């Protein structure tokens, strides 16, 4: 299993198109992700970033195209995939605590009817510790800050022990401590040879955090390593006129308008 995976790309997307009513939101997108990379999916608002992610995971129907994960269908490879949805996607007033939410990441491995036990609890606890949330394990989830909630979601994905992770805007609206925790975690995942696809908004941190970048504006504008793909020309093409490029100290900085 492991041997094969070094040869096959963790994720290959071919010709995915998603349409709501008659309007295409994502159009004919194809790319392959290199293994062990941190990949940013960037593009302007409404470019279809989240939709593309959900289409890959089968959460929204695509009208054409196919997805291959480690050379097989998503259905078969599901246990190797971890997903961190947007924080707003759930009701945080639900009667549960941080530890319980993290343990949900093990439900796929547990199978039907069986309840999580000692082993799951220990794993969830140590993962909460990893994201700096051990002290909040028994806290009701509505009493956590936005950043802390995001870290709980990350921990839940981590206990899935997947090889390929999808994260939908994990940095949106989080505090500095959470941002640091997420970056540390991404680094750790990369060292462990995992592949992570992150929907990202903040152009100023792309070069610092990521290896690989996908530029999306309904269609895929470009895909490749950050050094060669995250260029002013391609960004201009992606964001259209909504981007100003300011030159300072000989290095180009990008400013979203």
């Amino acid at each position: 299993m492991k041997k094969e995976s070094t040869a096959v790309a963790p994720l290959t997307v071919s010709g995915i198109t998603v349409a709501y009513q008659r309007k295409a939101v994502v159009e004919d997108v194809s790319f392959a992700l290199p293994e062990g990379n941190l990949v940013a999916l960037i593009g302007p608002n409404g470019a279809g970033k989240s939709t593309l992610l959900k289409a890959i995971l089968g959460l929204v129907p695509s009208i054409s195209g196919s997805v291959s994960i480690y050379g097989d269908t998503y259905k078969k490879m599901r246990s190797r995939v971890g997903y961190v949805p947007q924080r707003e996607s759930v009701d945080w007033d639900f009667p549960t605590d941080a530890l319980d939410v993290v343990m949900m990441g093990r439900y796929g491995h547990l199978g039907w009817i069986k309840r999580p036990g000692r082993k799951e609890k220990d794993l969830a606890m140590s993962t909460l510790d990893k994201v700096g949330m051990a002290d909040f394990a028994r806290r009701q989830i509505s009493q956590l800050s936005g950043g802390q909630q995001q870290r709980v979601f990350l921990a839940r994905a981590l206990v899935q022990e997947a090889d390929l992770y999808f994260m939908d805007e994990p940095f949106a609206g989080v505090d500095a401590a959470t941002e640091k925790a997420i970056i540390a975690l991404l680094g750790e995942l990369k060292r462990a040879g995992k592949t992570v696809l992150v929907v990202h908004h903040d152009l100023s941190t792309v070069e610092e955090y990521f290896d690989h970048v996908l530029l999306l504006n309904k269609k895929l504008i470009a895909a490749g390593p950050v050094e060669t793909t995250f260029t002013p020309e391609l960004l201009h093409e992606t964001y259209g006129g909504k981007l100003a490029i300011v030159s300072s100290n000989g290095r180009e900085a990008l400013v979203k308008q």
Partner: protein
Amino acid sequence: MLDWLISLWSDPNTRWILMGCTLLGLGSGVIGSFTFLRRESLLGDTLAHAALPGVCIAFMLHEVKSASLFLIGALVAGIAAVFCVSAITRWTKIKSDAAMGIVLTFFFGVGTVMLTHIQHSGSGSQSGLDKYLFGQAAAMVTSDVYILMGVSVLLVIAAMLLFKEFKLISFDPGFARGIGLPVGVLEHAMLILTTVAVAAGIQAVGVVLVAALLITPAAAARYWTDRLPVMLAYAGVFGALSGASGAAISTLGEGIPTGPVTVLAATLFFVLSLLLAPRRGLLSKSLRHRNLKADYARSAERSALNAAEGGSQK
């Protein structure tokens, strides 16, 4: 009072009905907790009102009053109603609350016409079908009670076995789908259990009020805890006590219907929870707010005093 309680227990028929209503409240409270958390509270109402034509058709086809037959009628009608709601939300821009409103009133209207027709045809009064509007547990025979008890126990067992799965699809269906749970199948299973709870409760509580047994105990239970298993237990107990009160109090007089009394008891639990629950209750909230204000005022006073002393020393 004591005599009354003893008499409830010594009469075998009353005893069975009491136990049936208690178990019904327990099962509905537990299943209703998931409906409540999934914000589908109107669903119970839709299912219940839709059941009326189902019950009437079952009666017209077979001309007998049988709980199991009515249960099947109510189930089929409930599923048809849910199907209509999802068809409307899927093919039009109408949101689900409006769709439920349209469907439940339509079904109830059809049911009322049928009920009137049955009553005018002469067989209705013997059938006691009109009791279905508001529920009369005393009208139940032993076989009805057996069905009621069996169904209620089934609800609790299903909720216990599928607890982890139901919790996940209630909290985060997207993630549940991601880890490979058949979310569609589970949602349908939950829907059918809810329909069963409603259909079973109709005879005791009535079509107009039975939805309260799903929602009110769950809403009351949410005040007492932040843990789902505990919430299910509270909702079950509140439901059971409501059902028991309804059955017991309605034996006091000929004209006291079980359904309304059950709902009043459930509402009483809700109001008490709303007011008195620790942490989430209104009383505890306002006390906490007052303490906070007093603390703040005191500390502000102290710092003002300190500042004044500091000033005079200079």
